[in-house]
Structures are given as structure tokens and as C-alpha cells.
């Protein structure tokens, strides 16, 4: 008995058991846990053992180990155990990729060096020497810490890690293989083969490899253990694979990056912080570290166990590997084909295996249930960008007619009204509300400069833009008190400082310091971008200070200087102050001091209609059910920028979201069988707005009608973004997790990524809340199961002269539309099949 126990290869046995568990978690994580690894819970009642009894107590994240969360939760409230289980795949994929790459380089180099190729030996030594001076950990940290690598999607991140860690680590493996090869080459049987006249290549493939492979197998396992060790170290230095997002202040501790996908290393990234309060939160470090330990031990022991096994003369494992080498040899396979009658069985087995491997890698993706028709989408785009609609501005005639078009189209497609109505109206003007920035239209304005008795006249949209009009003007419009001859601003420029030029109004008013803009990008982001921050969060270079003007002087004027300015259309909004942006010759002149300025505007036009969010509904099979009925909401903006009076401008990109959404409505309405879940299409008005958001249709929806949907129906939200032009080669996708238990965003996203790969879509996914400055996604996603936006929320070339229908990227629109259709029809979490 004792003798038998002594014969057991304990490292192989223990290592094998550990690896079995690890690989089980790799392939079948859903059998080990039924929790979603991405669901974040902020606070809840947990059951914990106190003095041997199970008690319920209130806890906020991170939750300590309790009955529901066996290993506790991380700082985002995500179950640690399920993240470790699901993280097995991501972590091991990195380790396997690194080792595979290292072996692909190290094997040929090591074999060549071991067989006497000096160059190979020199290269190996050089790399070894280089990474002797610089610890591999440090160089890996420096390279992988570059922001570009930190933001890569998981698959690309794995590639990046594989390449970097291969470069720093292949030479050590190559040196081992070189050493082993040298030893084998000194064996008597090799000398015999050389004497028999075999070439080095033949000796290498026929004699060397069968003896080397067992050692390589052993090295491979131990190398995987070493790579996992390195990954654990890098993780402590906050370097780990996969995308990350910023933890915002409203969650918990703020301002650090947290991993989105489950991965072992990411759970150790906060170790230096957590260790300061280790006694309170030790589970956050101990469990991930233990997981690494078990996996590393498993691979190390298996490698060592195999090494022990290979040293045995009568090792069955070695025989098996050598036979396997023979079995998988292509040359033998071809020879057997030639003698098919004799070897039909072996050929049959090998051919079936080959077919299975090929099918695994090249199996065609599931076909789409319904196709997105780009031509039909472009038909809608043609209508929405018709010049007569003048840019589809909220509250104006063009905006109204574009809304009518959308309603009629939805009706033609057979979509039903939502709760009795195809639209929901909201005020397009509220001058008394400082949070409301109405759209106004100024058709005529002139700026007269006078210096040394010489007057020069400049015109709006030719020499300057008028992005803002004072709120008081808006109030006059609302109350019908607009002066017949319009508004006049007068003042004199005064040199103040090198970067500042002041303009005074009436003599008794303090001059307003004007601040020179730093660059075009800040200005364009400041004014023209839908959803970008404004006001309090704008950079100080672009601050528009208000002054405490004496009572009775309601109007103020500001001038913004930019280094460059694109020829674009802009909307005019009501604002605290009136502002102009001069360009070209006017700008040069204004930068001089001591000029008298007179700005005159004809009475602006105010909106004639209220804003309108348009809704169409496609009931699903679940709509007749009792109980909660899941809803999918597909939202898209449809308004744009005023184009009247600007020849040569007919921007198309701002209409692409609505055009895409209309085509989605058609495609889904023509399905033979309705989907399980019901779908509501919303077209938001007023999205081309500035901070604050109150005039936006999505804001109005969220605070009024939306509350009812969100309370009554569990829903997921998909936002249709803008299509890029032909310069854009990658689709932006924003994914927002669900909040609260039972929201399976991890699996939905997993399926989404698979489908994106099946369709060969080039994309960039974001999870960062900073990207949620598109207000509709931000507001509607709050109570959703999870939310996604496909497409851009803004492009810098929108509303330029070059923004035309011909420049719209058809492939981008096709991909955008198709991925949304496939998500709704094929993704099990959307089509009702469930995971």
C-alpha cells in the first residue's frame, strides 16, 4: 500500500484536479453560478451569520460575504463569486494567448539555437540580457499603461497583452528550449542519424521533436502559471485586460477606473487602496488572490508532474504524446490517403476531426431574421433633408412637417399609437424658465464698425454668427413686446490685456471682459455639439461671465474669438447673454482696440408650435399576458439646425438617426410573426439643444410620460445614433448596465459582441459615463434593464457645408441598422427566449 502511494505522481494528481475545476469554470460557468456578474446593487438587506445565527442586516456596497453573495461583492456591488467564475475565461484566454505566442517564437528560435544556429542564440541572449536590466514587470507596466491599451475592447486587449508580454518573455522560454535541444542533440542516436546522412531538418522533425515535445508540454503548463503570476502582479499596478469605466460620485468611491468585464486581475487593481482598510474589506483581495493561487498552483503542479512523468522510462504519457505526434503528422495522413484501402479507418477518423475543427472556426453565423434596407432608409433621409423643412428646427414649420411625416410613415407601417396617441407635446418656449434655451431664428443682423470716422458693415452668417440671444429678447417674443425695428447693441472696444479685449456698452456700465477662445475644438464643442457640456462645466477660457448690470439695462453682448472656425450652420438659442462669433476680416478688425461697434438685429422669429415627441408601438406576443410585460424602446432624435438663409447648406447627418429608425420600424412591422417583446419607437424632438436639458424631448419624456412606462414595464432602451460620413470607419456603441437584481446585461452584451463579430462590424464600445452626455441615453437608461446606443452622438463635421446626403456612409448605416435588428430579433434576451 505504502509502495503504491509512493508511486503516485502527486503533483500531477493535485495539479490535474485543480485544473479540472478551473477548466470546468472556463467552459461551463453558468453551471457554477446563476448570478449576472455585471449587475450592480447599491444597497440591500443581507443575511449574515452572527454568533451562529442567521440575521438580516442592512448593508451598502461592497457587501461582505453573505448568504446570497458567497464571496461578498466588489465596490460596485457586483457579486464577487460570479465575477471570479465568469472571469476564468477572460483571464485564461490572456494566459493561453501569451503562452501560445511565446511558444510560436520560442520554439523555432530555441530549436535553431540548440541545433547550432549562432544568430538565433545571439538574439535569444540579447533579449534575455535586455530584460535582465529592466524587470519584465516594469516594462510591461509602462507599455500596457498607455491610455490606448487601457481602453481597448476585451478581444483587442487580449491581443495587446499577448504581444507585449510575448516580447518581454519569449526569450526565457527560448533559452530553456535551446538548452533542452542541445542536450538531445548530444544523444548517441542523433549522432547516428547524422552519420546516416539525414539533414538537420529531417533530424529536427523526425528525431528531435518527438523527444522535445514532452518537455515543451511541461514548459507550457509552467509558463501558463508564470504568466498568471505576472498578470496578478500587473493587476496590482492597475494594468488588466478589458474595457473599463469611470466610477462616478453617485455610485460610491469616485474617480477611479473599474473593469467592466469580469476578469481576475481587475479585481486586484484596487488592492493598494483596499489594503489600507484591509480589516474591513479583506474579501475584496483574498478571494481573487486565492483564485490566482489555485490556478497558478494547478498549472505549476501539472507541469512539474508531467516533467516527472516524462523522466520515467516507461512513461505512458510520453508514449501517448509520441504516438500523438505520429497520429497528427500531415505526412502520415497523406500517405494513409494514398493507401486508403488499408487505412480507411484512420483516415476516416482524422478527416472527421479535421472537418469538426474547420466547422468550429469557420461555421457560418446565424442568418439575420430580417434585413435592413439602406435604400429605403435613404428615401426617408431624402424627405427629411428636403430644403423646405429648413433643417427641422423644433417648434418651427419645418420641424412640424417633419414630425407629421414621421407620424404618417409609422401609420403606413401599421404601428399603433402609444396609449392612444402618436405624439406627446411639450412647450417649445418658456422664457421665464432659466433652464429653457429656446430656438430662435434671426434672419437679418448687421454689425457696423466705426473707427476714425470710417464705417464698415458686416452681415450675420457671412461675417459673424449669432449663437445666443439674451433671454429678455425671448421674453419679449413670448409676450409680444418685440420692438418693431428690432434690437441694437452699442459699445466700444478697449484693449485690456494681451489676451483680452473688452467691449463696453453704455458708458456707465462696466466693460465685460472678453476671453479669447483657445481653439476651435473647444468652441465647437461648446456651441454646436448636441449634448456637450456648457455653462458651469465649460473651460475657463470660454466662460461667459455675467455681470451685475444696473437695473434697467437688460441687454448684454459678448464676443467670442476663435483661432479657427468652420463654415457651418448653427442654431440661435436664447441665453443669458447675447453673443456673436466674428470670423475672417471682421475678427481681425475687432481684435484692434478703440473701435465703436453697433450690432442691430431685425425682430427674431419665435417657435410657432410646441415640441413633439412621436411614438409608435408594435405589440409583441407578450402584450396580452398578465403581469409585467417587457418592452423594448427604440429612440432617435429627429430635429436639426436651421438652414434657412444659408445657401449651400443641407446637412444630412442629423437626420440619419430618424431615417434609420423609420426603416427599423418598417422591417420589424413586416415580420411574419410578432416578436415576444413589444417595441415602442420614440422620435425625440428638441435634442439639438444645449445644457441645461429642459427643452429636450428626451428630458420632457422622462419627466412626464416616461415615468409611467418605467414604472409599469421592465424595459430595455436602444438608442439610434447618427451615421458617420465616409471618413468614419468605426461605429461607436455605448453600453449602460442595468441597475438592480435580475438584470442580465452581461449576457446581453456577450450576445451583442458575438453578433458584431459575426457581422464583421468595426466598432468601439464605451461604458464610460462621461460619454453619456447624449442626454436621451442618460435619462431614459436610468430605470432600464440595460441600454445601448449605436452610432455617434456627434461628429465634428456635422452641419458643415460638406455635410450632405452624398457623404453619408451607407455601409455604416447598414451596419448600424442591421445590428439593431439582429439584437432585437436574434438576441435571446430580446426575443424572449432568455438565456
Amino acid at each position, binding site marked *: 500500500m505504502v509502495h503504491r502511494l*509512493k508511486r503516485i505522481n502527486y503533483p500531477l494528481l493535485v495539479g490535474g484536479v485543480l485544473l479540472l475545476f478551473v477548466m470546468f469554470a472556463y467552459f461551463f460557468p453558468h453551471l457554477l453560478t446563476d448570478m449576472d456578474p455585471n449587475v450592480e446593487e447599491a444597497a440591500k438587506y443581507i443575511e449574515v451569520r452572527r454568533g451562529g445565527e442567521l440575521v438580516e442586516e442592512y448593508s451598502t456596497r461592497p457587501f461582505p460575504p453573505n448568504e446570497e453573495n458567497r464571496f461578498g461583492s466588489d465596490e460596485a456591488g457586483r457579486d464577487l463569486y460570479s465575477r471570479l467564475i465568469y472571469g476564468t475565461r477572460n483571464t485564461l484566454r490572456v494566459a493561453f494567448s501569451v503562452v501560445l505566442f511565446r511558444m510560436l517564437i520560442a520554439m523555432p528560435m530555441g530549436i535553431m539555437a540548440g541545433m547550432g544556429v549562432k544568430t538565433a542564440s545571439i538574439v535569444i541572449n540579447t533579449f534575455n540580457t535586455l530584460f535582465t536590466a529592466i524587470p519584465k514587470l516594469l516594462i510591461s507596466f509602462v507599455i500596457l499603461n498607455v491610455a490606448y491599451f487601457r481602453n481597448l475592447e476585451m478581444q483587442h486587449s487580449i491581443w495587446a497583452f499577448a504581444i507585449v508580454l510575448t516580447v518581454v518573455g519569449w526569450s526565457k522560454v527560448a533559452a530553456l528550449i535551446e538548452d533542452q535541444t542541445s542536450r538531445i542533440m548530444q544523444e548517441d542516436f542523433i549522432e547516428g542519424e547524422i552519420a546516416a546522412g539525414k539533414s538537420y531538418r529531417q533530424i529536427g522533425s523526425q528525431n528531435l521533436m518527438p523527444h522535445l515535445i514532452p518537455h515543451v508540454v511541461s514548459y507550457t503548463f509552467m509558463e501558463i502559471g508564470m504568466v498568471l503570476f505576472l498578470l496578478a502582479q500587473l493587476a496590482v499596478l492597475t494594468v488588466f485586460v478589458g474595457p473599463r469605466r469611470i466610477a462616478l460620485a453617485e455610485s460610491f468611491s469616485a474617480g477611479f477606473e473599474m473593469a467592466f468585464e469580469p476578469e481576475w486581475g481587475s479585481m486586484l487593481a484596487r*488592492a493598494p487602496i483596499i489594503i489600507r482598510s484591509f480589516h474591513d474589506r479583506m474579501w475584496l483581495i483574498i478571494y481573487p488572490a486565492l483564485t490566482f493561487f489555485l490556478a497558478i498552483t494547478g498549472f*505549476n*503542479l501539472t507541469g512539474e508532474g508531467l516533467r516527472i512523468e516524462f523522466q520515467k522510462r516507461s512513461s505512458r504519457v510520453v508514449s501517448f504524446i509520441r504516438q500523438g505526434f505520429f497520429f497528427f503528422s500531415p505526412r502520415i495522413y497523406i500517405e494513409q490517403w494514398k493507401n486508403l484501402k488499408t487505412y480507411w479507418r484512420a483516415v476516416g477518423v482524422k478527416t472527421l476531426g479535421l472537418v469538426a475543427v474547420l466547422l468550429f472556426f469557420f461555421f457560418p453565423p446565424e442568418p439575420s431574421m430580417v434585413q435592413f434596407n439602406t435604400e429605403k432608409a435613404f428615401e426617408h433621409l431624402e424627405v427629411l433633408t428636403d430644403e423646405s423643412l429648413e433643417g427641422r428646427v423644433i417648434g418651427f414649420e419645418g420641424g412640424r412637417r417633419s414630425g407629421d411625416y414621421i407620424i404618417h410613415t409609422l401609420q403606413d407601417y401599421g404601428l399603433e399609437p402609444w396609449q392612444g396617441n402618436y405624439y406627446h407635446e411639450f412647450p417649445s418656449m418658456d422664457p421665464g424658465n432659466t433652464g429653457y434655451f429656446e430656438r430662435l431664428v434671426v434672419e437679418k443682423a448687421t454689425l457696423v464698425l466705426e473707427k476714425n470716422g470710417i464705417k464698415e458693415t458686416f452681415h450675420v452668417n457671412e461675417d459673424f454668427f449669432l449663437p445666443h440671444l439674451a433671454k429678455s429678447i425671448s421674453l419679449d417674443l413670448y409676450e409680444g413686446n418685440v420692438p418693431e425695428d428690432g434690437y441694437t447693441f452699442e459699445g466700444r472696444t478697449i484693449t485690456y490685456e494681451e489676451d483680452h479685449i473688452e467691449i463696453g456698452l453704455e458708458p456707465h456700465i462696466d466693460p465685460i471682459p472678453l476671453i479669447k477662445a483657445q481653439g476651435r475644438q473647444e468652441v465647437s464643442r461648446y456651441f454646436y455639439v448636441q449634448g456637450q457640456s456648457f455653462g458651469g462645466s465649460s473651460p475657463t477660457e470660454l466662460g461667459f461671465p455675467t455681470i451685475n448690470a444696473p437695473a434697467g439695462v437688460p441687454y448684454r453682448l459678448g464676443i467670442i474669438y476663435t483661432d479657427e472656425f468652420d463654415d457651418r450652420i448653427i442654431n440661435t438659442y436664447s441665453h443669458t447673454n447675447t453673443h456673436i462669433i466674428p470670423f475672417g476680416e471682421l475678427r481681425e478688425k475687432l481684435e484692434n482696440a478703440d473701435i465703436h461697434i453697433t450690432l442691430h438685429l431685425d425682430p427674431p422669429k419665435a417657435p410657432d408650435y410646441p415640441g413633439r415627441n412621436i411614438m409608435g408601438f408594435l405589440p409583441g406576443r407578450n402584450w396580452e399576458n398578465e403581469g409585467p410585460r417587457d418592452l423594448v424602446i427604440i429612440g432617435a432624435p429627429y430635429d436639426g439646425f436651421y438652414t434657412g438663409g444659408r445657401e449651400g447648406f443641407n446637412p444630412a447627418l442629423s437626420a440619419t438617426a430618424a431615417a434609420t429608425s423609420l426603416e427599423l420600424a418598417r422591417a420589424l412591422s413586416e415580420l411574419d410573426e410578432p416578436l415576444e417583446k413589444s417595441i415602442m419607437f420614440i422620435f425625440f424632438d428638441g435634442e439639438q439643444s444645449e445644457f441645461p436639458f429642459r427643452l429636450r424631448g428626451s428630458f420632457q419624456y422622462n419627466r412626464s410620460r416616461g415615468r409611467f412606462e418605467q414604472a409599469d414595464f421592465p424595459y430595455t432602451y436602444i438608442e439610434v445614433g447618427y451615421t458617420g460620413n465616409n471618413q468614419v470607419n468605426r461605429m*461607436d456603441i455605448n453600453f449602460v448596465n442595468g441597475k438592480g437584481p435580475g438584470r442580465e446585461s452581461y449576457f446581453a452584451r456577450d450576445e451583442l459582441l458575438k453578433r458584431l463579430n459575426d457581422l464583421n462590424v468595426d466598432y468601439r464600445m464605451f461604458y464610460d459615463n462621461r460619454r453619456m452626455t447624449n442626454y436621451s441615453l442618460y435619462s431614459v437608461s436610468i430605470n432600464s434593464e440595460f441600454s445601448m446606443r449605436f452610432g455617434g452622438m456627434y461628429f465634428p463635421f456635422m452641419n458643415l457645408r460638406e455635410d450632405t446626403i452624398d457623404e453619408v456612409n451607407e455601409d455604416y448605416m447598414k451596419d448600424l441598422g442591421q445590428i439593431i435588428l439582429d439584437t432585437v430579433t436574434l438576441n435571446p434576451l430580446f426575443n424572449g427566449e432568455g438565456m
Partner: protein
Amino acid sequence: MKTEFAVNLGKKIFYQAIVLVMILVIILIASGIPTDFNVYYEYGQYHWSMSLEEVRLNIFQHFQGFLSGEIFDVVIAGESIGTLFRSAFVLSLKVLFGGTVLAFLIGVPKGILDSRKRGKSGTFKLLQSYIPLSIPDVLTVGLVQFGAIYLYYNDITFFGLGPIHFLGDESWLSTIYPIISISILPAAYMSRITASTIEDLYTKQFIITARGKGCSFGQILRQHMMKNIVFEILSSSPTIMAVMFSSLIIIERLFYYQGLGYHLIFFFSSYSLTPEQASAAFAVFIMGLAFFYYMLFMGFKGMKTWILPKIKES
């Protein structure tokens, strides 16, 4: 003969010096790349955050600063980089030296116990030496911290020393926990080396002879094996040292022990320094670390290649 030896030695030293200079140049180039150099993604396209010309200029200024010595005078939080480096170096050296000694004191006896004196005694004991090799640094530190926190909060002292705080580097006592943490892995290596050396030697003829003459295992160990064990450990020093240097960075980071490793990570990832300060400080520290590490490594390699064989022969 002696002349030929001297010439060969001279050539080897010259070659190593060239390699060292090349490595330092590469490090200087790499650390001269601005820390805010980035490829960022915006509106469907990738953009460089700065032009390659700006990067080249920064690297050039970096070289100038280093060669003129100005880089050492850059001030961070009231201290010059040179001063910071010296104090950090001393702190790290204490941990490395203490860790090495402790690893030897633990590893060798452990290896003696683990050794399978008769080759057919099974593989169970191998587990004991392999499992410690698989413990990631963060787990080691976590467990040491766990013990340290318990001792600290319960005011437990040892021989009048303590209670020792579990973080920081205020006093010499603060080196104790980092030393313990950094010694675990090298101790496992040394244990493994010791065990395998004993196993190899146990079947050698002169050992069999000694056993046959009635020498106890202790006598054999002291008189015949210890020398070989020390030789093998010294021969494996480059590997052990590589492990220790990597662990040093992690352990200093987790213990907030402000040695070289801690500062390197701090300079690279801190937002409280300007990119110029961070770049200069990082360059000085990594150059210093690389130089020290390389010299140490070459020293051990030289000892392994030339000195130890000669001692063995004699």
C-alpha cells in the same frame, strides 16, 4: 596564458559595458516619451495626442537633461530627484538584503527537510516546495497584512519592539513586514534548489562511501553537501534576484513602503506631478534600478561562470 585570460576578460567586460550603455540609452529614450503621449479615439477615428516631432524633442531634451546632470536637480515635493533616489535606494536595499538573508535562513532548512533522501520516496514532498512558488505576491502581502493588523490592533509586541504599523516606512521596524513578504518566494526557490541538490548528491559515490563508513546525515550534510548547496543557490541567484525585484515593486506598493519600486509606480501614474517632473523622476529611478540590477546580475553571472567552477575544482 594569463595575458590571454586578461584579454578575454577585457573583451567580455567591454562587451557587457556596451550592452549596459545600450540598455541605458534605450531606457532613456523610452522614459523620454511624454507620459501624456497617447492615441485617443474620438468621433469614429483615432488621433495622436501630440506629433512625433514633439515626442522627438522631448526625448532630446531628456538626454540633454541627463547628460548635463540637470535632471537630478529637478525638485519634487521639496526634494531633488537625486536626494529622493538615494533615500529610496537605501530603503529598498534594506528589504532586498533582509529578504535574501531571511529566505536563506528559511529556504535551506526547509529544503533539507523536503529532500527525498532516497530517490524512491515518492513525490508528495514536492508539493511542499512547489505550492509556495505559486503564491502571488498580493496574497502573500494580504496574509502578512492580516497578521500585522491583528498584532497592531491588539498591541502585541516582540521583545519590546512594536506594535509595528502595518503600512508605511516611518521607522526601521517598518521593514519587517516587507522583508517577510519578499522572502517567501525566494525561500521556496532556495528550498527547491536545496532539496534537488541533496537528492542529486545522495546517489553520488562519495556520499554512498561516507554513508557506508557510518557518517550520519548531519555529518554528510555539513561536510559534503552544504558547499554544493550554497554553490547551487549562488548559481541560481540571477533567477532568484529577478523574482525579488519584481516582488519588490508589488510589495513596496502594497505596504506603502517608499522604496524604488513604490516611487517608480508613483511617478508613472501620479496626477500630482507635471509630465516633465514625472518623466525626469521616472527616468532617474529606472536608470538607477536598471544599473544596480544589471551590475548585480552580471556579478552573480560572473561568479557562476568563472569563480564558482574554480572554487569547485580546487
